[in-house]
């Protein structure tokens, strides 16, 4: 039963892809949507079935042996345990709601078939990623997710910028993937297996805690996680990835793909526990990303880019949780984040379509009366994002992370987390006020589309996904999380109990402080703020944060420009030019000798006499000559 359900849950989206890809355009928009949405809906049902059939522990399903050469025996095999099931539910559940909403969002676009083919393939790849029982199969899903994200970011192919954004996303994440691949090579060489359970059992026997090999292996795996999860320094692709349709941003760049790195580290927790330094590095990178992204989100004007940076920031929180060894807290936040970030992106999508692809906050405003459903989505999602105490899902998961950081005595990470919470409050309020309140354009000539938005009315494809996700973003979503305590080693907070209340007060205080500060800044000191941001150090900070601390410019100078220079210099194939020298030499000799054959007796006679003289001279001069 179990095997059947699990197999169906990932084969159905694949079947959807194949049907759509080979329909050759014969399917209309409606039929494509039905196939695309239906396959993921059925996969979600299959996942629910698998959850009910699951009896605890880990169950393996080996389909076939992928490659068998000597000891190298990776399989196409699945391992189903609590973690996999939680991930599967998020992927298919949230994925289904996003697919459903996309049917509304994509109405009238050309290439619906292509859109759903990619979306289904994405769900399939992501399912394989979380189900694979060995690292090579996980890598298949891992790369598949990257390819789908390439196809979907570049969905609007007519604009070259979209194509380049897709290109950048693929190449930057691929750099991370190469680190992961090297990690795989190292793990296989040292432990002789890629099976996740086996390697987690073998690693503690073979490796000393903190040994070079363990550190190196963990570091390489971390490199892969940084790329997919958009953490510093491999994060630059995420904001550009907003070039795709908004449901894509919701599915890939918020709810699932970017969490793959968190999943990977949680899955290989035993490996990271053998490398405490690297584990701490995970937390530090998370903290750095969290802060950098939160500041960058303060200075964006595109509503999707604000959400993109908030995603990076929230994943930073998950990395902080991983870094202090609280794997369960990381997965908890992954789940709640998937709910509320999908909600926020879909609500943003509702705004964008209603306002005819206007997504600049400066030109929007005053929409709250005209787009009540989207506004509601933003309010609930925003509340979860800022972790509004007690009522939102985000509060419970973020509180857990901060508490674990405190229990692990990582005061630095704790302070960064609290500071991040304040910043989150500020940028969220700014986002909601800028989009829904005030007047369109906020005093400037705004968008006409924002004055006369066309609200979504379809109850099935517009309202339903938003309402369900909104419900999940409240404390209900936090209650639904089953908890995976038994799967992971004990988190630091298990032992300690003192101080939890103090921390909750602190966390609530941080969130509320952020909200109040933002309200004060954006409601009462608006003009003062605008003035400060327009001149002197304020303007400089604005530029710096608007460009997300200038990582793009830095990488352009350090990597892209030298690379382009090398490509340009080598375009003529310098090595080949050297290899052409014999040919050139032969041609030069030929030219010289051709000249000597001029047909004039005079010159032949001259050359002959000259030659004879030289020979005679040589004979005379050389020792023993003419004798």
């Amino acid at each position, binding site marked *: 039963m179990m095997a059947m359900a699990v197999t169906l849950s990932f084969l159905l989206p694949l079947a959807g892809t194949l049907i759509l890809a080979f329909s050759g355009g014969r399917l209309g928009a409606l039929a494509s949507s039905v196939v695309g949405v239906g396959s993921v809906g059925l996969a979600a049902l299959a996942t629910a079935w698998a959850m009910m059939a699951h009896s605890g522990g880990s169950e393996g399903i080996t389909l076939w042996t992928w490659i068998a050469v000597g000891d190298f025996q990776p399989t196409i095999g699945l391992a189903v345990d609590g973690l996999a099931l939680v991930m599967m539910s998020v992927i298919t559940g949230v994925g289904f709601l996003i697919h459903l909403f996309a049917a509304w969002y994509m109405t009238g676009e050309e290439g619906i078939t292509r859109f759903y083919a990619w979306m289904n393939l994405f769900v399939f790849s992501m399912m394989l990623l979380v189900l694979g029982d060995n690292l090579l199969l996980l890598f298949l899903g891992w790369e598949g997710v990257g390819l789908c994200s390439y196809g979907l970011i570049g969905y609007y192919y007519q604009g070259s910028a979209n194509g380049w954004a897709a290109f950048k996303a693929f190449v930057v994440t691929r750099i991370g993937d190469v680190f992961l691949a090297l990690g795989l090579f190292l793990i296989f060489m040292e432990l002789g297996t890629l099976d996740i359970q086996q390697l987690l059992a073998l690693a503690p026997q073979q490796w000393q805690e903190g040994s070079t090999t363990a550190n190196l292996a963990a570091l390489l795996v971390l490199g892969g996680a940084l790329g997919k999860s958009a953490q510093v320094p491999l994060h630059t692709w995420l904001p550009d990835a907003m070039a795709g349709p908004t449901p894509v941003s919701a599915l890939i760049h918020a709810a699932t793909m970017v969490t793959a790195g968190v999943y990977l580290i949680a899955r290989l927790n035993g490996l990271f526990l053998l490398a405490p330094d690297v584990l701490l590095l995970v937390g530090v990178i998370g903290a750095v990303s969290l802060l950098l992204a939160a500041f960058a989100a303060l200075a964006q004007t595109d509503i999707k880019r604000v959400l993109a940076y908030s995603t990076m920031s929230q994943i930073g929180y998950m990395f902080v949780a991983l870094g202090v060894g609280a794997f369960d807290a990381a997965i908890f936040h992954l789940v709640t984040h998937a709910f509320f970030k999908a909600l926020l992106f879909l609500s943003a999508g509702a705004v964008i379509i209603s306002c005819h692809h206007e997504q600049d906050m400066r030109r929007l405003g005053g929409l709250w009366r005209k787009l009540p459903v989207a506004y509601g989505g933003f309010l609930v999602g925003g509340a979860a994002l800022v972790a509004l105490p007690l009522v939102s899902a985000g509060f419970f998961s973020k509180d857990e992370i901060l508490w674990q950081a405190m229990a692990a005595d990582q005061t630095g990470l704790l302070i960064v987390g609290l500071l991040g919470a304040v910043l989150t409050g500020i940028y969220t309020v700014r986002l909601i006020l800028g989009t829904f309140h005030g007047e369109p354009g906020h005093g400037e000539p705004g968008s006409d589309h924002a004055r006369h938005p066309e609200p979504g009315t379809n109850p099935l494809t517009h309202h339903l996904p938003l309402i369900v996700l909104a419900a999940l973003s409240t404390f209900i979503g936090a209650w639904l999380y089953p908890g995976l305590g038994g799967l992971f080693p004990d988190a630091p907070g298990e032992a300690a109990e003192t101080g939890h209340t103090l921390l909750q007060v602190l966390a609530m205080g941080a969130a509320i402080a952020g909200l109040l500060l933002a309200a004060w800044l954006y409601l009462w000191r608006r003009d003062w703020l605008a003035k400060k941001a327009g001149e002197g150090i304020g303007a400089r900070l604005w530029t710096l944060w608007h460009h997300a601390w200038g990582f793009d410019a830095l990488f352009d100078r350090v990597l892209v420009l030298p690379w382009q220079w090398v*490509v340009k210099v080598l375009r003529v194939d310098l090595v080949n030019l050297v290899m052409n020298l014999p040919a050139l030499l032969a041609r030069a000799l030929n030219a010289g000798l051709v000249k000597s054959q001029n047909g004039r007796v005079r010159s032949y006679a001259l050359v002959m006499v000259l030659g004879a003289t030289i020979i005679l001279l040589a004979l005379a001069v050389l020792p023993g000559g003419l004798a």
Partner: protein
Amino acid sequence: MILVWLILIPFVGGLLCWQADQWGDRAPRWIALATMLFVLIISLVLWVTGDFALPGEVTRHWLLEWRTSWIPRFGIEIHLAMDGLSLILVALTGFLGALAVLCSWHEIDHRVGFFHLNLLFILGGVVGVFLALDLFLFFLFWEMMLVPMYFLIALWGHSGSAGQTRIRAATRFFIYTQASGLLMLVAILSLVFVHYSNTGELSFSYDTLLDTDVPEALAPWLMLGFFVAFAVKLPVVPFHGWLPDAHAQAPTAGSVDLAGILLKTAAYGILRFALPLFPEESQAFAPVAMTLGLVGIIYGAVLACGQQDIKRLIAYTSISHMGFVLIALYSGSELAIQGAIILMVAHAFSSAGLFILSGQLYERIHTRDMRIMGGLWGRIPVLPGFTLCFVAASLGMPATANFVGEFMVLFGTFPNAPVVVVIASVGLVLAAIYSLLLMQRVHYGPEYRQGALRGPDAREYGMMLVLLVLTVMVGLYPQPILDITAPIAGPAAELFQQAGAELASRAGEVN
């Protein structure tokens, strides 16, 4: 006897095509197609019925063998033999040969009979190379591939950019291959004479020469003679100068054969001759060979990024991919050598796919210059999707054969040469860059010209689909190939390791 037929069928078919010209253009095409399918079917039947169990005894075990005396005075025989490796490559030749005929169905419109004669003669020569065990016969077939290829490029080729004529490309191809072939001939003859002076017996037979005791001073040079000939064909930087021109200027069928099969004769040659004949020298030479492989991976990728001609771009990617094969062959790891074989098959599929696609593109927009493409995704149905699939294969996307090959190579090589693998992995990122550059320049962006173009017909669609299905099948279940090449890869790796141990012990004695 069936081995003789495998070689003869393409030659007979070629002559028939030539004569069939008088019955119109269609006759040679059908005859050529039937001929190559015949070769393919024979090899598939052999594959299904063959017994590929690991050889139990020490002597080499061939699936099929056929020998008869040819020039007894010099000890030259017609000695053909087939094992798993040659079987796969012969099957691949039949398959790509059929594709080459199909993809030039409308492209070639003059001297159709003579075109197919040349095409089939190349393929006949290639089958000969894969089956010949007598070194003289091997050299004969090795040279025999050359001449018809020269005509193919010179008579039916395209003129390239910057004054590169097809004649020049053909001449360059000929000179490179011919000159390096002569080095191999010298090496073969020296080997035979060394054996003669040792035993008083003149023989070109592979089995006999395998045990020849070559003087230590001479052996590295003979090994180099073989290596250079194969390095030119593979190609290894800096001997790659002929490849971009030949690929770009050849007709589609020529490019498919060049990339798909002719490059593989070099890898086959290294695995069959250079390594077993000179194991210790090869072992000592391995660091150099691996370095050359790395240079090829990086250099080929960088150059691919700078190309404007779509076929030249694909041609340079071949250099990059063959770098992985070269590293694997000199790694002394069974896993890596098996990976190299998979990668050879995978590269044959993916590069053939890309070349056929660029041929189909050329038939529609009459250019190969990527600067005047762009936005084709909206103008041509289906083809951009296929392009993305083969591009994904070329950059080593998992679930394609290329991934299996590349990763087996890297997994296998890592324990022996981790630094090499780390540098080679950079090639994975570069592969993503050049592959997606192709997509970006050709299919993304604003439309360079307006107007819809016709989609693929059944023939074009069928070719793409078959290639794609095969790529994914090998990518998800490579075991049928791995099973029949295990008896070759295992001993090759073992031989290499023994040679390494021997070298080490000898070095110990000296110290």
